[in-house]
């Protein structure tokens, strides 16, 4: 019995499995959020992020595996877990016909804060999320970003020690996104343990202490943002050659510059080389290609994206993964 882990981990999940009919949404997922830290769960569409959050927040029962939140088993004592968590789902669950204030007040009442405290908390949160002016308007009249903020405020009503945010910034404009990040940073500074899912490496990088990358319901990589980036190779050198027949040759020339294997995207006549060293590597690469007489259409250096993480870790891009999955589903339908 690992008692010390129960005390120090806000969230712990071991071997979670969940099937939806033929689709395997989770395939033995392990997660750990040490108390007071932020775990970023990174993955493409359909990776199983929402399914994991739903299990951890007691909305779904896993087919196998076990999970504890704040030391309480999610299957054995879901009611106990609910007193410790705040949740903001992927799609803002605000009641459109209630005002912002009424939404938050209702949630406070259902956390049993009492009438006075609920109203006071609702006002506080509306102010904190810059919704105080819109607070007495129906949520129906809110913009997408305002709804998102209201939904997040709903998760915070009872100051829960463990927070789950499922893609909190998807669909927000850059300004709202930056604001949301500031709010989340504030919460974390105040000691809240947070599990956050996202499709953006940048977001995980900025907010998370630890990151797990999941695909097809399994963790395929984990570590700090720096560790992951080192694995991915700090930057990507992207080169498009003019003549498709010379790709193989170009790959041979460029491989010595890479810190990982060169990835070829045949139909785009492009090569991706994970590199460290920036502009000097770029110059070096061009010199070498020139030396072999290989003509270049386009060249660029960019920071790694989620796609690069995927390319490096799985050998396929996030979109391909999604494509493969919808193909799977089509096959199932056909069967």
């Amino acid at each position, binding site marked *: 019995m690992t008692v010390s882990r129960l005390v120090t981990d806000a969230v712990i999940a071991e071997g979670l499995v969940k099937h939806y009919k033929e689709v395997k949404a989770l395939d033995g997922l392990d997660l750990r959020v040490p108390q007071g830290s932020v775990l970023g769960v990174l993955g493409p569409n359909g990776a199983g992020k929402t399914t994991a959050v739903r299990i951890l927040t*007691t*909305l779904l029962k896993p087919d196998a595996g076990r999970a504890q939140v704040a030391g309480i088993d999610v299957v054995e004592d879901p009611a106990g877990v*609910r007193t410790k968590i705040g949740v903001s*789902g992927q*799609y803002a*669950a605000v*009641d459109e016909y*209630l005002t912002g204030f009424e939404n938050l007040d209702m949630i406070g009442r259902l*956390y049993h804060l009492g009438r006075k405290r609920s109203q006071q908390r609702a006002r506080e949160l509306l102010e904190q999320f810059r919704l105080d002016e819109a607070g007495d308007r129906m949520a129906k009249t809110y913009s997408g970003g305002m709804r998102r903020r209201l939904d997040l405020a709903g998760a915070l009503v009872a100051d829960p020690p463990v927070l789950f945010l499922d893609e909190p910034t998807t669909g927000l404009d850059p300004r709202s996104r930056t604001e949301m990040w500031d709010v989340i940073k504030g919460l974390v500074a105040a000691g809240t343990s947070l599990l956050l899912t996202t499709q953006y490496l940048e977001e995980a990088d900025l907010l998370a202490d630890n990151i797990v990358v999941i695909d097809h319901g399994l963790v395929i990589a984990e570590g700090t943002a720096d560790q992951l980036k080192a694995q991915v190779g700090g930057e990507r050198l992207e080169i498009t050659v003019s003549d498709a027949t010379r790709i193989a040759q170009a790959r041979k020339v460029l491989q010595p510059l890479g810190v990982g294997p060169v990835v070829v995207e045949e139909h785009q006549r492009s090569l991706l080389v994970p590199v460290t060293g920036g502009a000097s590597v770029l110059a070096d690469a061009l010199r070498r290609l020139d030396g072999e007489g290989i003509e270049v259409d386009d060249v660029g250096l960019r920071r790694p994206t989620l796609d690069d993480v995927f390319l490096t870790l799985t050998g396929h891009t996030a979109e391909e993964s999604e494509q493969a999955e919808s193909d799977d589903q089509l096959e199932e339908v056909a069967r």
Partner: protein
Amino acid sequence: MSTATALSDGFVVAKRNLIKIKRVPDMIVFTTMSPIMFILLFAYVFGGAIDQQGGGEGYREFLIAGIFAQTVVFGATVTGAGLADDIKKGIIDRFRSLPMSPSAVLFGRTLSDVANNVIVLVVMGLTGLLVGWRIRTSFEEALLGFLLLLLFAYAISWVMAWVGMLVPSPEVVNNASFMVIFPLTFVANTFVPLETLPGPLQTFAEWNPVSAVTQAARDLCGNPNPNPAAPEPTSWALQNPEIYTILWAAVVLLIFVPLSNAQYRRSTSR
């Protein structure tokens, strides 16, 4: 979780649903306009036609309780559509992640739908009085009649709650319940005296709980069949419409309250 908590959580949810009655345009129409329209339409179109063929002045009065019964039964479908809508919009996910009483959402929902039906009955009763319907018994008896209508609708609410959580969208709830509730409320004594129905339909109508609750409301308001030659009801259900209505509601509640609660624990959006 204590009963007091369950009740107070239920009231919070009910309050939220009631706020919607005044803010959602559909609901305002559904709760106030359509009951008025039903009374006027049935009273003047059907009532008028049948009066002229010698049905007698009493036919309009006879109809009103039938319209009450049909309208509160339709009112109960709000329960299913409302729940389906809450599931679709993720509100139920939010509720299920809160440390509230797990039965409070259904309790609050059905409670607010009773409140909704009270408004419907008041609006219809007032409209009825305007077109000539009268309570010819005592206030207490009439009140009992209205309470039976509400109890009956409350039981149907729990059936609709279960349906609402099973089907994928509020529209499906509405269509599906239409398919069931229309025949249920028409193959009954709601709008025509039973003796005018052909054989098998008549038997069905005699045991149809909608007939019983209608009959109970008629008896308790003193609005009998205007045809003095009408035969006495032959089924036990219509001979004891109050008891039959209560029994029927009790059985439905005993089955569907646990069934709906179990379904609630399983339902999530998508």
